[in-house]
């Protein structure tokens, strides 16, 4: 299929378009907040607290009088930054581990890596995150590391699983015959052939990362105030829900729509990039 054909197919996939539009909206909001927000999110104006949505404050104000729209924009920044780095950690460590395990399939290295992965997998991911942030103190950095760590086995397994059948292909055999070592083969021939899968999985993990960050912040173990975070906005709104429902609604929708968008985009990408489904 040509580049042009791929693009046309992409436009036809409703999931892909809607998903990308949703994700892009939040990415644009986050980018915009780097330069401009309607109001300063660090400035508290107690006098105008808990205002319902209006022309002045589109999404209303919170219990300290901060503008919720501005907080959601900056919160998107937090979510995206945490998720990108966490997925980066997962891919950066998980993919090489998976490639190495596949290259040394059945041997000690493979066993060590995969059993190590099982060990990390065995613990519920959020539990690990809570443990790390409790021991090392709550902060954005520790939240990122915690979320990153449970991304590692996901990518390691996926990479190994996808790489194993490739090692039996003829073109790998010819590469080996021509004298290429396992490292070179992995990088030059295996990796390009598993990239599609990694992109799809990366999108899904990205949305899980956003959810995990929100969950950690909700229990107070994520980004610390005054940096806005969707999870903490929800936690703050909890006791105020009866008098200021907008405080819970908007960050809730933000999380819902972003995660939905990323999942749709992930599904759409898989449909598009997986040759078996595409040809069916």
């Amino acid at each position, binding site marked *: 299929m040509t580049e042009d054909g791929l693009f046309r197919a992409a436009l036809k996939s409703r999931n892909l378009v809607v998903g990308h539009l949703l994700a892009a909206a939040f990415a644009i909001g986050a980018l915009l907040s780097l330069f401009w927000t309607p109001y300063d999110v*660090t*400035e*508290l104006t*107690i006098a105008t*607290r808990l205002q319902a949505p209006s022309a002045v404050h589109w999404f209303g104000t919170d*219990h*300290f*009088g901060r503008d919720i729209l501005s907080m959601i924009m900056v919160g998107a920044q937090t979510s995206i930054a945490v998720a990108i780095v966490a997925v980066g950690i997962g891919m950066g460590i998980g993919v090489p581990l998976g490639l190495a395990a596949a290259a040394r399939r059945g041997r000690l290295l493979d066993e060590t890596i995969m059993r190590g992965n099982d060990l990390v997998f065995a613990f519920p991911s959020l539990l690990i995150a809570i443990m790390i942030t409790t021991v090392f*103190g*709550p*902060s954005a950095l520790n939240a990122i590391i915690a979320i990153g760590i449970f991304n590692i086995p996901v990518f390691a397994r996926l990479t190994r699983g996808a790489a194993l059948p490739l090692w039996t292909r003829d073109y790998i055999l010819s590469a080996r015959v021509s004298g290429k070592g396992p490292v070179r083969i992995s990088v030059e021939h295996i990796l390009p052939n598993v990239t599609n899968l990694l992109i799809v999985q990366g999108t899904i993990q990205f949305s899980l990362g956003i959810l995990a960050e929100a969950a950690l912040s909700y229990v*107070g173990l994520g980004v*610390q*105030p*005054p940096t806005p975070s969707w999870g903490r906005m929800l936690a703050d709104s*909890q*006791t*105020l829900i*009866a*008098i200021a429902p907008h405080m819970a609604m908007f960050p809730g929708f933000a999380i819902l729509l972003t995660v939905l968008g990323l999942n749709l985009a992930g599904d759409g990408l898989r449909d598009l990039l997986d040759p078996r489904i595409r040809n069916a």
Partner: protein
Amino acid sequence: MIKIQQSATAFALLALTAGGAWAAKADVTIGMQLEPPHLDPTSAAAGAIDQALYSNVFEGLTRFGPDGSVGPGLAESWEISADGTMYTFNLREGVKFHDGTDFEATDVVFSLDRARAEDSANAQKALFSGIKSVEAIDPTTVVVTLNAPQGNFLFNMAWGDAVIVAPESIDDIKSNPVGTGAFKFSEWKRGDSITIERNADYWGAAPALEQATFKYISEPTAAFSAMMAGDIDAFYSYPAPENLVQFEADPRFTVLAGNTEGETILAINNKMEPFGDVRVRKAVSMAIDRQAIIDGAMFGYGTPIGTHFAPHHPDYVDLTGNAPHDPEGAKALLAEAGYPDGFETTLKLPPPSYARRGGEIIAAQLRDVGIEAEISNLEWAQWLEQVFRGYDYGLTIVSHTEPMDIGIYARPTYYFQYDNPEFQALITALSVENDPATRTEMLQEAQRIISEDYVNGFLFQLALTSVVDARLDGIWPDAPTQAVDLTGVSWTE
């Protein structure tokens, strides 16, 4: 016609029985936020123990009234010797502990000796440090001899830490408390509730309630639903001030807004640079807008304070003017102290909402004068370890709920590490002063010294907001001590 009459009669009967059921209601369920670690008020600092048991199950020689006044408890009357060092307590006759044993002078000797012993686990040993000896003259007379005259000895004896316990039941006191009070301990479902029952053999006026349950609900949202659903009849010290507006608007409930002994302060680590400089501490105090904190963190409940003293106390001096909200003045002071661009510090916050919310507001106010306070939210155990015992903090917010606790500023090793010999001498002199007028003067002087030294940022007096079923009568609106005294509580209608 007949049918209508019949149903009318039935209806009237139904109404009667229903009315009867109301009149018979003699139990109460009180929601509380913190569950006690065990049930011995004489060996732990946890206020939750006193809240459930003080005056209900355990009584002292003297007792606090709802307004904080000290009146007779197990001691019916007392005489003080002319030099102020000898207190002769005349004990009530015919008082029995809940296990049936008699209350006698030897129990008083046992309790006070136990509390002041070398190996005592009492959390407020200072209350007893002035006692030289305790002697039982006869079964209803006890003489306490002090090392020196002590102005507030009767006040000290009213504390929950000074209640009278019996040697017969002391071994199991942590799980089965046996006192002399109007209620006896019945059941403790750990993690859920404590139940007490009316003591039929009580020496004083019998309480109106037959049974009372303290139900422990730590989550504000759960507390809200339990109150709305009628699962609890009252919530003592309701944790989420933001819900009070709704309760106030609801005719089923009454919101009691009273005073606590809780001075809420922005504690400053006086030994950590740059807080050793009084100009820096003053700048911090001036950066703070107290009313914004009360409105933003407490939804308007709370009274601004300018020193470490309860505003409802007769000896209180209003010193809020010593540090008015003045960001420009604060910046000028910082520049004068050598920090024209401000500085960075830490702001460690324990779990209560006054600290977490107040902390966010204070951090923003400090930022306006150039001080970057990095917030970290801690659990109580971490807070005690890092801040209270470890001195590892710049700023923190906490409410000091003990009554008359200005004396903590005379302890140089207390967590805010304020070391002023002048103040320490004043408190030492105060502890042996008996003349009420001089005591007032000295207490006011003490308030002025710490206020003018800007030891801490003095924020507000914590309000006690309890939500109570409108038909329930007699819950103390104020908290002169940590107690939920149910002896005078009854249902109306």
